[in-house]
């Protein structure tokens, strides 16, 4: 189910689309947001303009995406849920899921997606090892292989995030 959810998300990310699609499985979004609020790794405060947000962060530093990062780097995945506490909101994407490679030197964005309140993907980037380039999900036309990679990364991250205590 997880894979299907993110596969559909990935397929719903064609080039040039301002809105990259809605969550095919709203329950998955609900589960992720519930997970973030129930047992966040950290809760951070964020102020953008007149709006104050509470950001629930779930981070896993385990190797959920073995083989995706260079040897000297560690895979890491993070889910952010930004909820307005006061003010009109709208300054921050409500959801964000990232898969990264990190080291003491720097963090490389493997892939990330920003989502709306409904879990629908609004934008993001995907690292493409074949071309060694970062693809803008709003602009790039993903090949089937790239879409599959995006699916695998996000599905793997979501599964581990949901399965974590």
């Amino acid at each position, binding site marked *: 189910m997880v894979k299907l959810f993110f596969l559909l998300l990935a397929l719903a990310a064609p080039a040039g689309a301002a809105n990259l699609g809605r969550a095919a499985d709203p329950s998955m979004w609900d589960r992720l947001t519930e997970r973030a609020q129930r047992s966040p790794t*950290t809760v*951070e405060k*964020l*102020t*953008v*303009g007149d709006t104050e*947000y509470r*950001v629930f*962060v779930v*981070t896993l530093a385990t190797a959920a995406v073995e083989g995706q990062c260079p040897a000297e780097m560690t895979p890491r995945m*993070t889910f*952010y849920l*930004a909820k307005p506490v006061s003010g009109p909101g*709208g*300054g*921050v*994407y409500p959801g*964000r899921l*990232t898969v*990264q490679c990190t080291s*003491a*030197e*720097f*963090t*490389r*964005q493997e892939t*990330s997606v*920003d989502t709306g309140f409904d879990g629908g993907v*609004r*934008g993001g980037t995907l690292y493409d090892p074949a071309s060694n380039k*970062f693809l803008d999900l709003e602009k790039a036309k993903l090949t089937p292989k790239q879409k599959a990679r995006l699916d695998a990364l996000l599905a793997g991250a979501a599964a581990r995030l949901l399965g974590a205590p």
Partner: protein
Amino acid sequence: MSMRAAVLALLAFAAPLRANDVGARVEFAGRPFDGAASNPIRTDFTGLLIQGRFEGPAAPVEASVKSGTTWGPWIEATGESTKNGRFWMKVLVAGRKGDSVRLRTTAAVEVFGLYATDFAEEGPGPGPFRNMTAPVPSAASSPKPEVKSRAEWGARPAAKPYSPMTPERITIHHTESAQPLSAESAIDELQATQRFHQNGRGWIDMAYHYLIDGGGRIWEGRPMAVVGAHVKEKNDGNVGISLMGDFSKGKKKPTVAQIASLTRLTRWLSATYAIPADRVKGHRDQEITECPGDALYAQLYELRRTTAASADLFASTRRTAMVLREPAW
């Protein structure tokens, strides 16, 4: 103490040059310094550093620098003093060589030392702010510096929503443009930079999280804890601080006020977000670029050292440590 006595005190209690003071010691040959000229200063310098003690109420201290045969305007020194009258001050001037300086003040003052210093050339080692030390509680060692908000410089809203992030490293930049000294000119430069980044670069907002003008004012760029646009493909978790100016080789140098504010901001960020000192880097450490320019990059060793010292304070509440005191401007 009379002015003449003060000058004698200057000679008697002159503090030694610190290892990183590359400038010249300034002496007045026993003459009063209520306007009298010093000996020639045979080195490039960008500022004057004074330390001493007021014997009564504090009063402004002013300096004038000679260029060729012409004396420049009187410039008021800035700095800090303690309850017992001890003070240190500095006067920033343009880089000069072979000139003289004169001082004046209405206060009864004892001057311990006066140095023509090229602040920007300071290498690793104690900086000019280390001479005044005091044990303080660790919680007070890294207070949040004053940051002028986006509203104060008339920032335009971001073109799109931001992406949240968790700060875990800091990258130092220069804007490679003007080095405004006044708040008014800084606002003009900030607005121009935002327009360049939004309209020219195509980013959703100003690239950096913080910018520091030539007068040391800290300005909010993007809100904290959202992804910036200052290191290609390595922006996640990366806080961008940019000093306004072009510090490339042969160009300008960061002012003392800029470095002081950068130090306070970095220490506060490090303490607040638990960012270790070795994750404070220059832009050029992360991709091929000249940024942040040689003159600023040369300061980063000391910046990391200071940040690490601050972190040590947090690591042990029992430790009594020497901490930096910095000017209040």
